[in-house]
């Protein structure tokens, strides 16, 4: 990392530290949503389909433990992405005019976004662990992290393309549709429809459900699908950020 990138990153983190409410909310929002939803859910029996086709009998309470962390991470990471982009639009163009390379300015923003996402993922995993123990923590955590990366990048793209209000509405709409309903085994017959795979959260969500309830399941395809979404959207977010902060007018 160049000296200027390190300086921009330090400034970006200092900017966050000046707003301690952000830090508190990045912890409080997922912690409240996850703990409240799991704690109040009844232990109603529920048969679901795991990745690979195996059927398993679990409870609605455990299912909430398996999927609520992903929904909370997605929504918070998406909002952080939206407002990271807004900060870049306001401040980072000035850095570029003052002599910074666009890549140096956006690296700092992306590190802040990644750190915020990592914090939300860590909080979500810790709170989930208080109520529910997945069969395989490793796969479960990978799914959680991929949800954060995918929706953080989607938020960044939405923040570049539309107003804050529209981006916030759109992220709510997308997260609720994708992770809240379409990929959620709590509803329907317990197995997402085939077309659910078209949504960005499908892969990570199935990884989390598999990691939560299966000793072993076919991970490679879901991992490849999720990684493709994460890499593609991150690359798109980087390209848009570079274009936005590099514009001199």
């Amino acid at each position, binding site marked *: 990392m160049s000296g200027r990138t390190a300086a921009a990153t330090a400034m970006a983190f200092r900017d966050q530290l000046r707003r301690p409410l952000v830090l508190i909310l990045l912890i409080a929002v997922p912690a409240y949503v996850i703990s409240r939803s799991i704690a109040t859910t009844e232990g109603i029996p529920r048969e679901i389909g795991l990745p690979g086709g195996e059927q398993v009998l679990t409870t609605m309470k455990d299912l*909430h433990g398996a999927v609520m962390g992903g929904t909370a991470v997605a929504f918070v990471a998406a909002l952080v992405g939206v407002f990271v982009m807004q900060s870049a639009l306001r401040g980072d163009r000035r850095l570029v005019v003052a002599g910074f390379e666009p890549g140096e300015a956006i690296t700092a923003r992306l590190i802040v976004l990644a750190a915020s996402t990592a914090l939300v993922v860590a909080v979500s995993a810790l709170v989930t662990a208080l109520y529910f123990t997945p069969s395989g923590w490793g796969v479960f955590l990978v799914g959680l992290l991929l949800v954060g990366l995918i929706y953080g990048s989607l938020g960044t793209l939405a923040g570049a393309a539309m107003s804050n209000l529209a981006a916030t*509405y759109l992220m709510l709409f997308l997260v*609720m549709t994708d992770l809240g309903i379409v990929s959620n085994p709590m509803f329907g017959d317990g197995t997402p429809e085939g077309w659910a795979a078209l949504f960005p959260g499908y892969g990570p969500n199935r990884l989390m459900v598999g990691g939560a309830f299966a000793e072993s399941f076919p991970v490679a395809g879901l991992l490849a699908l999720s990684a493709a979404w994460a890499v593609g959207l991150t690359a798109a977010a980087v390209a848009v950020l570079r274009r936005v902060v590099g514009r001199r007018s």
Partner: protein
Amino acid sequence: MTAFAEVAGSFVREQARTPLNLVLLVFIPIFFVVIFASVLGEFAEALGGDLAEQAATSISAGWAAAFLCGTLAFFQLNSARDADRRLASAGLGPWRVATGRIAAALVLGALVSAVAYLTLWLRSGVEHPPHAALAILIFAAIYIGLGALIGVLVRGQLEGSLIVVLVFALDVFSGPAMTSGGGLTSFTPTRDAAELLIAAGGGRDSPASDWIGAAAVAAGGIAIAMVAFWLSARSRGS
């Protein structure tokens, strides 16, 4: 009156200048009612509530109006603070600016509520149409107050939008639709409005106490929003 209508109209046009905002204000209530309502019955049962499907469909219309209006009021206050101060200093005065903002928020809230109500009516019918329409409007009014209050207390857009989400989640998970009672249920801002909407969806009349409670909280929400917009519009020196 003409000047006031002009100011309030310009605040509405401010939102209309971003067509995507309007599209989403219309589309999301439809989405909430049509798609989300179909799974809310199962969701409520899992959380210990006892919503029948029709009542679940009704409550989804209230929630759509609530979240959209809360977020709208927050961003309306947050992003217009400087412009409103200039308008007030230029002779309009903070009260008239605040009244114009409230009027614009209520017009947009009524639009969202009307879309949610019409979707509800087309999807599953409404047993008590006036009751349901009023209850959805009450949800909107309460969240206009909450959004404006958050907007005047919190300057950061990320912080503010996360607090709107947190308040909404607290309200939804503790409301009568999702719990079997006790704890926070008695203190959530939309408790009475939710009871009204659930009753209207299920074809039952509501007791007068629910109407009085919901109207009082909605009036409180509008009063809070008025004070919040006034505080935001007045110049630092006055």
